[in-house]
């Protein structure tokens, strides 16, 4: 078996009154599709991905992508599963988004996209203006989330945000609004923070949509044993716990059932 395989995405439609050809197909659609195909083939770890080569051919418009056979085999399996389930809910978010982008273009321009790999002779998936390759919205729910890490960037011309480098999620971007950043008097960069944010979470997989994050609160987080800090808090907190037996109190609070 060859080590290189290919994917063909055939686009059928009209440009005005003429059938679509590479001569009347706008580069904007090509640029978007290139990005979508990269997300479809390599949703994660783009830095270490194999080369993806590209060619455009007539009939109507045929996009040809060449890359490693391993990625093609994986992609063919995804196409088969999407076709069989008629759903993209089971996909990782980046892959699902790429399908949604193609579906949206199909509806907007009345294009049909037929997708196949070099593993099969027939087209494996068709995306048409009538198909509905969108995620079921209600499986993404609002969640309140906490992230901890080092703040590495703050700003943005149009969308104000902060970048937080975390050990659990890598570098994540959180929308803050310009007002929040304008009001900051101290330098935020390269300091440890906790971020309380709202965002979307998948109820089946627990996956967090890191593009949906919005800042609720920035929390000072710099863990180190500091007697003065702790003793100051204890001297204030202990007043509320005078004469309380914490075990009895907690048992009573929890309803007294056996654990």
């Amino acid at each position, binding site marked *: 078996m060859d080590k290189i395989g290919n994917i063909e995405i055939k686009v059928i439609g009209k440009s005005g009154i003429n059938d679509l050809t590479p001569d009347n197909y706008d580069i904007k659609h090509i640029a978007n599709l290139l990005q979508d195909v990269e997300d479809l083939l390599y949703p994660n770890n783009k830095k270490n991905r194999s080369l993806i080569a590209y060619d455009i051919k007539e009939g109507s418009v045929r996009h040809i992508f060449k890359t490693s056979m391993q990625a093609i085999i994986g992609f063919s399996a995804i196409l088969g599963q999407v076709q069989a389930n008629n759903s993209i809910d089971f996909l990782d978010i980046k892959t699902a988004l790429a399908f949604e982008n193609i579906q949206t273009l199909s509806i907007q321009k009345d294009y049909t996209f037929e997708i196949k790999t070099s593993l099969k002779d027939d087209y494996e998936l068709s995306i048409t203006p009538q198909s509905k390759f969108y995620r079921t919205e209600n499986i993404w729910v609002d969640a*309140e989330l906490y992230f901890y890490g080092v703040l590495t960037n703050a700003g943005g011309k149009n969308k104000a945000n902060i970048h937080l480098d975390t050990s659990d999620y890598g570098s994540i971007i959180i929308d803050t609004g310009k007002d929040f950043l304008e009001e900051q008097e101290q330098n935020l960069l390269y300091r440890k923070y906790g971020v309380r944010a709202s965002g979307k979470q998948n109820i089946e997989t627990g996956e967090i949509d890191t593009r949906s994050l919005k800042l609720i609160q920035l929390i000072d987080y710099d863990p180190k044993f500091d007697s003065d800090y702790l003793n100051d808090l204890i001297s204030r907190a202990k007043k509320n716990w005078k004469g309380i037996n914490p075990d009895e109190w907690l048992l009573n609070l929890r309803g007294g059932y056996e654990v």
Partner: protein
Amino acid sequence: MNDEDPLHKNAKGYYRYFLENDIILKVSTITIAEYCVLGKLEDLPLRDIQIIPFNLEHAKKQESLQKLFSPKIRLQ
């Protein structure tokens, strides 16, 4: 957070050990809710502790946890 509690010294010793050995401390929002029945949020050393929220993702795991930790409770 009460130095008159008989176990305070032990708790503080663990706390110090964890922080000095780069062991991450975490507290759930449910525990914070219980604490805040009598205490105040601003009295907790949140500069040292990460917060774990309670979302739908956690709620759906309740049944299996309940069976594990409290088998005597009859589940419907």
